[in-house]
């Protein structure tokens, strides 16, 4: 797991010893993780485990003191402004979707493509978005604030896609959605993955996340307590019991942690 080779082409994101502190309070304590190129990595953990702080710190959108190292395709990103990190091909789909409510769906998507200078490329991306998420085409002219929660999540994904990212960070994409919509969201995550982006996702909904993830980490009180492939982590008895609520797997599974 400690592949710190600067130009390892197989690594999309390498995080070493990330620490995030708000004043005296430590939210993330020495977290390390690796997102292999082309993988879907899920970080699981309960409320307050430090998931959102991790994502915000990586995306450069936090007011806290940060230590450690993070390399995106070999280039160091910690401490850069959020817009510079976005320019390097990593985009965060923030917690709670955060669509720009007064702008139309189409304008939100165009904003996602803010750094695409070529109009032709923008049109291609827009077409791709509409293909993946037809609802965004149907409601192109309505204000984003009028969409349902699930539709807003699709818009947040589409908006991320518009920047043509190599790595997408997702902060609790299923939060606050109806169970049916959670499945749709996970399908969308898979679709974005098939399209070629690596994905780092934090989720409380471990069962759903493990269905689409290739690798998984378990975060507790700011530390990684367990890691492995999604299957390994999913079958670990402690994880199964604590996060998945699956009793029989808890008895049958192999310990990964």
């Amino acid at each position: 797991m400690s592949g710190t080779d600067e130009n390892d082409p197989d690594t999309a994101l390498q995080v070493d010893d990330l620490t995030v502190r708000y004043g005296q309070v430590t939210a993330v304590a020495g977290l390390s993780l690796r997102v292999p190129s082309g993988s879907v990595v899920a970080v699981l953990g309960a409320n307050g485990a430090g998931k959102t702080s991790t994502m915000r710190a990586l995306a450069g959108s936090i007011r806290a003191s940060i230590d450690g190292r993070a390399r995106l395709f070999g280039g160091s990103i910690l401490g850069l402004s959020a817009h510079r990190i976005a320019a390097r091909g990593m985009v965060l789909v923030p917690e709670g979707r955060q669509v720009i409510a007064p702008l139309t769906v189409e304008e939100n998507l165009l904003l996602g493509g803010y750094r695409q200078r070529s109009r032709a490329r923008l049109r291609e991306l827009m077409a791709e978005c509409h293909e993946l998420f037809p609802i965004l085409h149907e409601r192109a002219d309505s204000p984003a604030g009028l969409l349902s929660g699930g539709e807003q999540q699709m818009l947040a994904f589409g908006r991320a896609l518009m920047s043509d990212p190599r790595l997408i960070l997702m902060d609790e994409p299923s939060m606050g959605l109806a169970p049916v919509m959670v499945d749709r969201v996970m399908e969308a995550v898979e679709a974005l993955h098939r399209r070629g982006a690596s994905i780092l996702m934090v989720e409380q909904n471990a069962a759903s996340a493990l269905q689409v993830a290739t690798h998984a980490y378990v975060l507790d009180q700011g530390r990684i307590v367990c890691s492995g492939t999604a299957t390994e982590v999913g079958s670990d008895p402690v994880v199964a019991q604590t996060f998945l609520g699956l009793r029989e797997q808890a008895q049958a599974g192999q310990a990964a942690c």
Partner: protein
Amino acid sequence: MAIASISSWYAGNETLIQNILIYALLAFSVQVVLRAGVFSLAGIGFYAIGSYTAALLLKKGWPTVPSILAAVLLCILLGYLLALLLVRLRDLYLAMATVAFDLMVGVVATNWTGLTGGPLGVTGIPLVMGTLPIFLTAVGAMLLLGLLQRGVLGRSFEAIREDEPLALTLAIDTSRYRHFAFVISCVLGCLAGAYHALLFGTIEPTDAGFELIVLALSMVIIGGFRSWAGALLGAILLTWLPLELTSVGSWLNLVYGGLMIVLATWLPGGLLDALRALLRLPARLRLLLRSPSSLAATGEERG
């Protein structure tokens, strides 16, 4: 000997002291609302209303105390009405509306010639005011504002300023507190105006204009808006400095303006906060020497 020198100093500076006290009242009227998170500058309008009311009643032959009391009552009434009218406004909208109110008062004062004497203002007001009543009023105001800063009331104001929705969930009747602060502000502005008119004998309709708004706000911001002591400090500095710094002369406003920019950007607590920090410095240094990490861990922030 000492008493003699104090009294001679006092005789030489009585006007300065009177001015400081009056401006302190005006600064309090701005501070009391800002502290409660109410961006009202209506106190300056009430400065004008108070000065006209007291002066005109006095010239009609009313005795001093009833004239001032009548002005205060009128300001309470008008202040309460204005508070009811502006109850839905917050923040910048309220600031703008109250600035508009102040200037509207000026327009009325200039144009209602029959009542106010129009652009010429009011002259020949009997000089019935002495320093002592103003001093006592200022002390009373400080006590009141000090009380408002402490205890349940003070914490409620703070809660309203920092997070009004949260304050509401704590069962703080925010609009009652806001009204209360607003009316107090009006009364303090009113008293400052009335005393000024009765002390110096003239009123001009332009007295309470944009410049007075800027001056009152400068006092509060430069001194420190979180405490009455800051407002007092601001009033003293901005009344006294122009007399001391005659060599700087007309560039003084430039200094105020620059000071406001610097303080609002780097030191929102004003000079009072800077002074307190300076006084705490030795203690903090000792702490630092004993355990360097205890301080380093606090206050670190990434932009």
